[in-house]
């Protein structure tokens, strides 16, 4: 019974906080609510008896990435969000480039799909063993991540790289070289 209560508290907290992230006009509050959402997710991981994943979630997302977000928001000191203008004259938005980008995106989707299919039995416990002790063991987690799930692991990093390049392209201003 207590598990059910904490689950709904954490899950509800995550959903409400995520909603408030989009609902806020002030980017500072959005960042704060995103941190709350991450913390609630970490709580769910702890409940799934995977403390390492929970701690990694806090260190990487709530600790490192969100500090960076906060830093950028403070540096821009934007009190309100405003919509960006769509720029058609950008060299990277020419049709040829667009088609090349579409092909690359297709390749990425195929790669991710393959990564998901390549691992048979995604729902099977880590390392083929049962029990919470395996998931909470950092050693087992690392072994499995770099052997059985190596392809999915690398494919995910490509996905993050694509997102990063996309952010740079979107944020680049007209006239900058």
């Amino acid at each position, binding site marked *: 019974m207590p598990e059910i209560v904490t689950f709904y508290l954490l899950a509800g907290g995550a959903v409400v906080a995520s909603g408030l992230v989009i609902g806020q006009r002030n980017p500072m509050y959005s960042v704060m609510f995103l941190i709350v959402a991450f913390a609630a997710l970490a709580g769910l991981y702890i409940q799934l008896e995977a*403390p390492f994943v929970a*701690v990694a979630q*806090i260190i990487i997302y709530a600790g490192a990435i969100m500090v960076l977000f906060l830093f950028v928001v403070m540096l821009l000191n934007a009190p309100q969000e405003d919509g960006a203008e769509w720029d058609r004259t950008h060299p990277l938005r020419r049709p040829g480039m667009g088609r090349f980008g579409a092909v690359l995106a297709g390749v990425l989707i195929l790669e991710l799909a393959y990564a998901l299919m390549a691992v048979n039995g995604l729902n099977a416990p880590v390392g083929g063993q049962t029990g919470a002790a395996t998931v909470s063991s950092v050693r087992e987690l690392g072994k499995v991540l770099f052997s059985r799930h190596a392809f999915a692991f690398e494919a995910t990093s490509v996905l993050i790289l694509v997102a990063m390049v996309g952010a740079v392209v979107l944020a680049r201003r007209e006239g900058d070289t």
Partner: protein
Amino acid sequence: MDLRFGVQLAIIGLTFFMLINASALLVLAERKIMGFMQQRYGPYLVGPHGLLQPLADILKLLMKEELRPKGADKWLFTLAPILSVTAAFAAFATVPWGAETTFFGLLETPVKLGVADVNVGLLVVFAITSMGVYGIVLAGWASNSKYSLMGGLRASAQMISYELAYATSLAAVILLAGSLSLREVVDTQAGTWFGFIPRWWIFLQPVGFLVYVIAGVAETNRAPFDFPEAEQELVAGYNTEYSSVRFALFPQAEYINMATMSAVATDLYLGGWHGIPLLDAYGLSWVTFLLKVGAILFTYIWMRWTLPRYRYDQLMAFGWKFLFPLSVVNLIVTAALVLYFNA
């Protein structure tokens, strides 16, 4: 009620009490040591040799009027100091501070001194310490003051930069000890090499220890890296607009963070509570621990009153171009040696 449960609660309460007192005592220690280094007495009037000075300080801060600037963000301005001090206390949760003890035979089964023993304890400390930066950043932003904002920006940039070196130097010890649990890391340091050198990881990781201590100074925003509150440039930095209890919580968080940093350094590098066999025999291993923590804290204060503050660009260059590469090289060499000797 179960006796074990009660004992565990008592240990949690004791840890909390010790941390609160650590922050009060460190304020006094800082002023006394500063006085000593500047050839004067320091606080002397309140109590014998000024021992009750922290109490007077706290009473004074409690009596002060609480101010909030008109343009300040109402919620975040209040939340910032709370967040700071909560993170500081919570970070100590997985730090063990003594061997298993029965309290001189009072208990039938020995208990572990420390709030919680988690198998990823070191990462928990690291995660919660990294949450502490939000308190400072939010304080800087919510005050709606240019000095505070500059302080907050500096704090976030500095903490992101030095967290890398800090975590990488920790990773080398984890490799040697083969565990992420602080208690297990301490237990790997029992005994001696060749019969006279204590098996402390500092002797295998002198570079890592140095990097850890330097990055730790930067993480706790202490001089010579106290840029978030550089008083000659920023008035008081992120806490310029704060007064009364809200202000008091920031230095308290800073001192508790110092204590946590020193306790983790003791657990990882200095052999934790191992080292004085006589005290071990009487179940007083935690005294050894406190002595070591005290030595590191003294070094912290010593550094603050001896070294002048760096320039901001020097801080960034030092962190990224020297400390971080050094810790990475240290990690790679350690990994290679561990692989070589284990194979």
